[in-house]
């Protein structure tokens, strides 16, 4: 099925499934408020929602940029310093899997209520898929091409820019599909843990006031942002690799 059509079907059918779920299960509004109630909140409180969305986006994008810098730097280092990869991989696995709550508690004590703890959480959520994919991509370069470049006495820089990085690019873009959407959710979770602003903080506020309509409005907004991030990555991917489609046609 056409991917765009699938998205349209999802957007159209989601409210229908929502209403049917309420009708069939008789779910009370404190669990699942009707869509029109949530839509009302999104309209009447749009200014507040947009303000907090901006906070979340800034956190997510800041963390994401930092994650990219760290992950790419490490991946390139692994390529030329294999011993560093052997040394660093156990650490990256541990750091990736350490419970965020523990780190958050320590960071809030050390760094206080600054954007840093939230950005660090986003980095922790997003750097590993980028690191793993780019590392694999850089190593997947065609060995015949590498041999030829070396035969032609090409510099390491030329080999990297003309062979290794183009080989890694599809892997890098694929990592964004996971990591970019993850940065939005990571920021929301970080705000939920210890922030006073942002979509995560709005969820806490909505829950503490028993406003399921507000909680669902924020949930939909955060999901829409994550889907938007995913579609953006797909669009970039299509643009960068349009020659593949052209070759086939």
């Amino acid at each position: 099925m056409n991917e765009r059509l699938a998205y349209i079907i999802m957007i159209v059918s989601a409210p229908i499934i929502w209403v049917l779920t309420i009708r069939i299960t008789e779910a009370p509004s404190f669990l699942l408020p009707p869509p029109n109630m949530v839509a009302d909140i999104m309209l009447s409180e749009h200014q507040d929602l947009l303000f907090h969305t901006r906070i979340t986006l800034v956190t997510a994008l800041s963390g994401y940029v930092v994650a990219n810098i760290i992950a790419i730097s490490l991946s390139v280092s692994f390529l030329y310093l294999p011993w560093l990869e052997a040394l660093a991989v156990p650490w990256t696995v541990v750091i990736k899997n350490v419970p965020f709550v523990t780190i958050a508690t320590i960071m809030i004590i050390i760094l206080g209520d600054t954007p840093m703890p939230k950005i660090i959480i986003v980095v922790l959520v997003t750097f590993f898929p980028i690191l793993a994919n780019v590392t694999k991509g850089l190593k997947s370069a065609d060995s015949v091409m590498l041999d030829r470049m070396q035969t032609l006495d090409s510099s390491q820089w030329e080999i990297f820019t003309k062979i290794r990085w183009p080989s890694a690019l599809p892997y890098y873009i694929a990592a964004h599909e996971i990591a970019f959407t993850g940065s939005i959710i990571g920021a929301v979770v970080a705000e939920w843990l210890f922030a006073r602003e942002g979509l995560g903080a709005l969820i806490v506020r909505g829950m503490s006031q028993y406003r399921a309509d507000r909680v669902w409005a924020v949930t939909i907004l955060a999901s829409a942002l994550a889907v938007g991030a995913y579609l953006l990555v797909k669009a970039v991917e299509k643009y960068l690799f349009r020659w593949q489609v052209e070759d086939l046609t």
Partner: protein
Amino acid sequence: MNRSTFTLALIALLALMLSACVAQAPAAPAAEEGQMAAEEEPMAEEAVEAGSEAEFEQILACVEENFPAESYFTNELLPAVDAAWEPMECDSVDSIKVGMPWVLNDEEAPWYNAIELGYFADVCLEVELVAGGPGVDHLQTLAGGAVDIAVVAGGSTVPSLVASPTPADVVAVGTFLKHSPYIWLGLDPDTPQDQRSDKVLTPQDFVGAKVGLQPGNDYLFEFIANKHGIAHDDVELMAAGFTPDPVLVGAMDYIGAWIVNQPRLMEEQGFMNWVAFRFSDWGWDGYGDVTVVRRETFEENPDLVSRFLAAQTQGLNYLLENPDASAEIAVVYGVDAQLTKEQALRRFELQEALVLGSDDLPISHMSADRWNMQVASMIQYDQLELEACK
């Protein structure tokens, strides 16, 4: 859908994200607007307080008329004060799940007593205590049916849920703490670390201070700022967790806490010079560790609720009369916290005044006036919306 339509949809999505990035801060709530005006044209603290009081009285009258406390609380199922304890003859036993206000530590001592000393068994109940804690709201699990009875830490959550546009019908049937244990906790620099401080904090002590608040508690600052004429820029608010460590390491000057819990944690680390700003002394007061049931349970099975409350009250009486033995029981049952008997006893000492209260009502009993005042405060500081009282 062709490529251009898809591109347009993508552009629209990006525009949404971009508009979020350039969105202005939301309009300040009424309380903030009042404060901003105060900053532009300095007012005497008394004038601010008088204006705040007049507004409060207006809201209180509206609450009493449109959302009276009697619609969500009752004392009628609590045992009579002079009732003698007599075990029942049990033809069958009711098994119930009871959501606790926090992780299983010594806060739940009355319920541990009721299990350990057989008070629940005496009234034909088999009770499973379900731990609460960060992220677990037993008022919601009660409304959803996962527990049969909930003991909720903050009593104010009951009217919040009942009055919400996405409501659940629940009834508060008894309280453990008659006053709010909520405080802002700090250290007194003028008292040696190994001595207890007798300093009495006032709202003005927070001017220029860093105050750590748990997510969702900013309204308590709004309350203090508006009621006592403190400018918003004068206090640096920070996000905080539940341990007092940030105060001990100097990252914050004060942190939101419960008088019965975090101060003793400071004492354990050798900081006897803690000092507390008690919100209950400054106009923000409410019930704590409130027992709540669904209305359907209240109406269809009042006998079960009565029996539970009788055993709970018996456990509470035992705690008040035998703190030493209760502490020994709490240390065993409080499996989520590695507590010593001394720590439990210190909690009991700190919480006794809150349990007994300053009203003339028997223990566990609540008053409509207190509930209405709490609701009016919540409306005044944007924590509860009541259509009729906007």
